[in-house]
């Protein structure tokens, strides 16, 4: 061999670095062009700010009941009206953003950690451990995710953390499949073979060569997974198995407003608009990221 081991290694590293620079340059160019993605990012930043500064934004304490102002329609005093106990709906929706974002973040962390570890192990090592993990995924996928999440939330009891665990526990399956498929594809690529030939350890190959190349699909999938997590959490609360009243989670607010839809439409409809707007933000952003980071995936949807 005319090229020394060190030179070959440097060559591989230079190529990888070049790819990353090109990718990041392209990323901003494509991302900036996508107006919907920018709108999505702005919506999400807005919701995050509302969640952080809820005590400043909210004109009233979200839990204080006011029996002189029951079921008031939206007005200047109460921009979103009041609920059946006279609580200010605008303040409740503002505080509710915290639950929604916590659920989104919490679920995504569980899904990303569990899904990556299992997907890596299944894809990289293959064999028996791979079949074991993938058969378990098949079993999980035979039960509708929402049904399984309901059963888990029911078994654990309600509350914010149990909702996050329940949704995270059903969400990792698809992600594991995606990570596994990517690892399988990368494992056979020439630069991995080269790294292995140079004597790199499994850990080094995974950390330095496979993981960086998987960031794009992972980020895209995770962004597009947040909406599902938010919608499922709201559904669990709506069905009475999630965040419990009096906490102003948006799904729980809708459930509470349901009894009054014939004469106080705002209680059920406005928190729903908040959910829709947040989810829309993540969908816009996810679509934009997908087009910018991974044009191959744009074909799939």
């Amino acid at each position, binding site marked *: 061999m005319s090229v020394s081991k060190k030179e070959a290694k440097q060559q591989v590293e230079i190529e990888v670095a070049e790819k990353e620079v090109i990718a990041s340059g392209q990323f901003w160019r494509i991302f900036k062009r996508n107006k919907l993605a920018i709108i999505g990012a702005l919506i999400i930043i807005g919701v995050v700010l509302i969640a952080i500064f809820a005590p400043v934004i909210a004109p009233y304490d979200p839990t204080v009941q006011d029996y002189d102002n029951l079921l008031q329609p939206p007005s200047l005093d109460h921009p979103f009206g009041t609920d059946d106990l006279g609580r200010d709906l605008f303040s409740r929706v503002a505080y509710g953003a915290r639950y929604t974002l916590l659920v989104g973040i919490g679920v995504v962390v569980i899904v990303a950690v569990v899904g990556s570890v299992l997907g890596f192990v299944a894809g990289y090592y293959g064999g028996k451990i791979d079949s074991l993990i993938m058969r378990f995924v*098949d*079993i999980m996928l*035979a039960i*509708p995710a929402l049904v399984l999440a309901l059963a888990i939330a029911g078994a654990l009891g309600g509350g914010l953390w149990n909702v996050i665990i329940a949704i995270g526990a059903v969400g990792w399956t698809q992600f594991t499949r995606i990570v596994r498929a990517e690892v399988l594809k990368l494992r056979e690529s020439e630069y991995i073979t080269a790294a292995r030939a140079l004597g790199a350890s499994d850990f080094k190959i995974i950390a330095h060569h496979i993981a960086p190349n998987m960031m794009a699909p992972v980020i895209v999938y995770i962004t597009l997974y947040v909406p599902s997590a938010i919608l499922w959490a709201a559904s669990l609360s709506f069905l009475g198995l999630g965040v419990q009243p009096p906490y102003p989670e948006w799904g729980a607010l809708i459930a509470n407003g349901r009894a009054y839809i014939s004469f106080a439409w705002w209680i059920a409809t406005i928190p729903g608009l908040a959910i829709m707007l947040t989810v829309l933000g993540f969908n816009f952003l996810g679509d934009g990221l997908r087009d910018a980071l991974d044009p191959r995936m*744009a074909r799939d949807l």
Partner: protein
Amino acid sequence: MFQYILRRTLLIIPILLGVTILVFSLMHISGDPVKLTYGTNLTADMLQQKRQELGLDKPIVEQYFHWLINALHGDLGLSIRTHSGVIQLINERVWATLELTTIALLITLVVSIPAGIISAVKRYTFFDQVARIFALFWVSMPYFWLGLIFMIIFSINLKLLPVSGRGGAIWTWEGFKYLILPSLTLGLPPAALFMRMIRSNMLEIINEDYVRTARSKGLKEYTVVLKHAFRNALISVVTLLGLRIPWLFGGAVITETVFAWPGMGRLLVDSIMKRDYPVVQGVVLVIAILVVISNIIVDFAYAFLDPRIRYN
């Protein structure tokens, strides 16, 4: 083809076995159902007696095999709350769920296929842009909220359709009008997803050589679009259909709760709340069976549409 069907059908046995183990263990980490049901009303001795009656004093593995053997004989046990047979409870409800999911699926396809084709053929026109943005809004709505909005508009304000419940057999107008809003609620959000899928697939196919060939030999445009392009786009529609079927049954749980539609979903939610674990186990098992069967049908449709799969 026969071999493929056989192999595919046999694969469901281990999956369903896994489902039973999963659900069974899940229901037994949730605490003592007897205590939860009767806790405050009975003495410790009476609770113990209840546990014996229900077979809950035995080791969990023994309980599982006991349940499994009974299940194989078509006996899913008795509800802790109402003492009626779980099979009987499910049988009363499963048809309503199937009615809802079938009509919803039809709505999804009837809306999404024409919209997807038109969107692709008239790409970047006003229709296409509106349909695409509308679709994104549509997939961002929670089902239960959409249902409530429909209810507020069509039942409470316009008084066109009943608010909720069931009015009899669905092939009569009296019964069918109760199903309209629930099935729209369940069927429209996925239609947006299908539309986007059909659109992007059609766009890809329209640029293929064989479509150009079809055009250049003078075929009419609709023959080219429907016969050459759409038939090939159907393969991906069927794939998405397979992926969405669990969602359909999951969404039915919420939709049934919103509209008080007497299907399995409401039974499930009620039973989870009351920790009526024999009913929960039974309903989840039946839903899993429905999902697995639907997936097999989708796989066969797939093999039928795409000969490459049969030969692999």
